[in-house]
């Protein structure tokens, strides 16, 4: 089904190796910022992969996916604040809460399709955002500091940054594996069938609503995991974690990397977040070339470049980075 050596597979393997070697680089060079950045990238990649499961394969464009990041994060934060530090409690609660929210939102929003679905998922995420702002006891708008990372009874220690990075990395691999298995299962075929022609799938006897709902909940749970990891990474959780622009970022990652491919969103997450770090420097270099000196404050305006870039990607680079890699082997079926 999949030919082993294609340019794309080579890139995937290279990226995974790169991700695996980030802590080694940090240890050798003493540059721990890179590891912190890549921990963030790996965590958000989990979220983007989960979004891609429903968006790329299921055709359900959710504009409220960051809500699960927030729910997972707040589950950890609130339990920590109430003195329950055990990860064996915090993490299952985070996953269960995300799953329940996904069940509710999915049950309501899957009754509609298309642009309604986009707006409704956005609206429900906004609702959770305002609920978090209203939580006076848990910091409200200012957020909640987590003084103790999730405890796993001495089995392992999340405050060890290298260990935490590898934990996130393993979780990403696990997520990728699950999504890959799901997509290639009967369940995944039914989801993709419903995405391309819902009526026909129902006519041949698939209860597509239930299939889609289960898929929606699975994606929510995965993203809840990312939220729990993110809260542990930053030792902090605030409503900003689920601001609606974050949901937009996740969509950008999935589309930038290549929607409807299992690994694409990881590429997208790396590309977007590295771009965010690199663009200010690029602006400095360009202003150096154009004006002969660095223009004061110009680097702050990197979003001025990112925004039109998104527009251009939509217009001219459909299929994202993954699509570009695939272009050399156009005749092959999508793996």
């Amino acid at each position: 089904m999949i030919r082993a050596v294609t340019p794309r597979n080579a890139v995937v393997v290279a990226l995974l190796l790169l991700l695996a070697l980030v802590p080694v680089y940090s240890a050798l060079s003493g540059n721990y910022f890179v590891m912190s950045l890549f921990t963030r990238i790996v965590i958000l990649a989990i979220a983007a992969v989960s979004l891609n499961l429903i968006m790329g394969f299921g055709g359900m464009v959710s504009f409220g996916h960051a809500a699960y990041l927030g729910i997972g994060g707040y589950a950890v934060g609130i339990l920590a604040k109430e003195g329950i530090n055990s990860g064996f409690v915090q993490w299952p609660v985070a996953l269960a809460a995300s799953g329940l929210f996904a069940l509710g939102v999915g049950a309501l929003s899957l009754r509609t399709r298309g642009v309604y679905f986009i707006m409704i998922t956005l609206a429900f995420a906004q609702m959770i955002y305002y609920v978090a702002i209203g939580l006076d006891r848990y910091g409200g708008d200012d957020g909640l500091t987590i003084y103790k990372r999730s405890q796993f009874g001495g089995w392992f220690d999340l405050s060890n940054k290298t260990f935490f990075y590898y934990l996130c990395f393993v979780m990403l691999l696990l997520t990728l594996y699950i999504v890959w298995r799901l997509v290639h299962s009967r369940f995944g075929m039914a989801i993709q069938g419903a995405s391309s022609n819902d009526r026909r799938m129902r006519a041949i006897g698939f209860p597509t609503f239930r299939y889609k709902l289960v898929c929606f909940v699975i994606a929510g749970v995965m993203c809840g995991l990312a939220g729990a990891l993110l809260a542990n990474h930053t030792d902090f959780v605030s409503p900003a974690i689920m601001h609606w622009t974050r949901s937009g970022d996740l969509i950008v990652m999935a589309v930038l990397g290549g929607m409807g491919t299992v690994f694409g969103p990881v590429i997208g997450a790396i590309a977007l977040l590295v771009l965010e770090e690199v663009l200010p420097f690029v602006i400095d270099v360009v202003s150096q070339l154009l004006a002969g000196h660095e223009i004061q404050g110009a680097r702050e305006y990197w979003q001025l470049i990112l925004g039109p870039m998104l527009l251009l990607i939509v217009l001219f680079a459909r299929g994202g980075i993954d699509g570009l890699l695939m272009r050399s082997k156009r005749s092959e079926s999508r793996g």
Partner: protein
Amino acid sequence: MLYFIEQCLNGIQLGMLLFLLAAGLTLIFGIMDLVNLAHGSLYMIGAYFAATFAAWTGSFVAGAALALVAAMICGMVLELIAIRPLYGRSHLDHVLATFGLLLFFNELVRLIWGPAGMTLPLPSEMLSAVQVLPGVYYPVFRLVIIAATLVVALLLYVLVMRTRIGMLIRAGASNREMVGALGVNIKLLYTLVFGLGAALAGFAGLMQAPILTVQIGMGENILILAFVVIIIGGIGSIRGAFVAAMIVGLIDTLGRAFIPDMVRSYVSYSAASSLGPSLSSMLIYMLMAAVLVVRPEGLFPAASK
């Protein structure tokens, strides 16, 4: 009771504002089948233009008029450059592209006007309060907002239902290929409709500017509220947008005004201080969920879709 009437008027005023945004959004969606996240940016730009032009001309009315024209021109230029290639693409493409535009506009405004917000001072005659009912005083400017928006709504109705342009707009909404085939310059029509939507959004922004601070990102939260309005009212229906905007405006305002007190009489003070605001901000989303359960297409679904 007096407080209740005052809050009702506030709710109507919020509803009017939401209607201006939602009407533009629903018009653009209904006719061009375009999801426009950058609509909130036009609202923001309208407010910034109004503040700038008012300071420049020294008159609120002149500033507002200039800002309205400027917002409309901005919208039409935006349509020509960035929106036009998006027609016929998937909704996901629209979301992504207009999300990019929104980031761009936020940054552009920061570049031009600086990160600090602006204020738009009102002329003195609008600062006073009038007695609307015995014992109920209400700021003149908020009444002006309500009246002006009603006039705009009426004009919009006349434009869409009683003029040739409106007839073309309605025809374009139900079958754009046919309208194009009949020799109507559909591209020009789209640009006009987008400009009209931009003007409505800009008008909402400039009317709101004296009440709130003019700041970056001011259009985003209200844009999502406008989405809720459209979902409740039914996409593509201006009448639905009007009714839903009133409902959402009233429920949201009254909820925020009264629910925290109501909650306080049932649970302890500390619990209520969290629960009250959370509950009142959830109210309209619960309403949206309820509407979805009963009528997934909204209260007034557009007939053609």
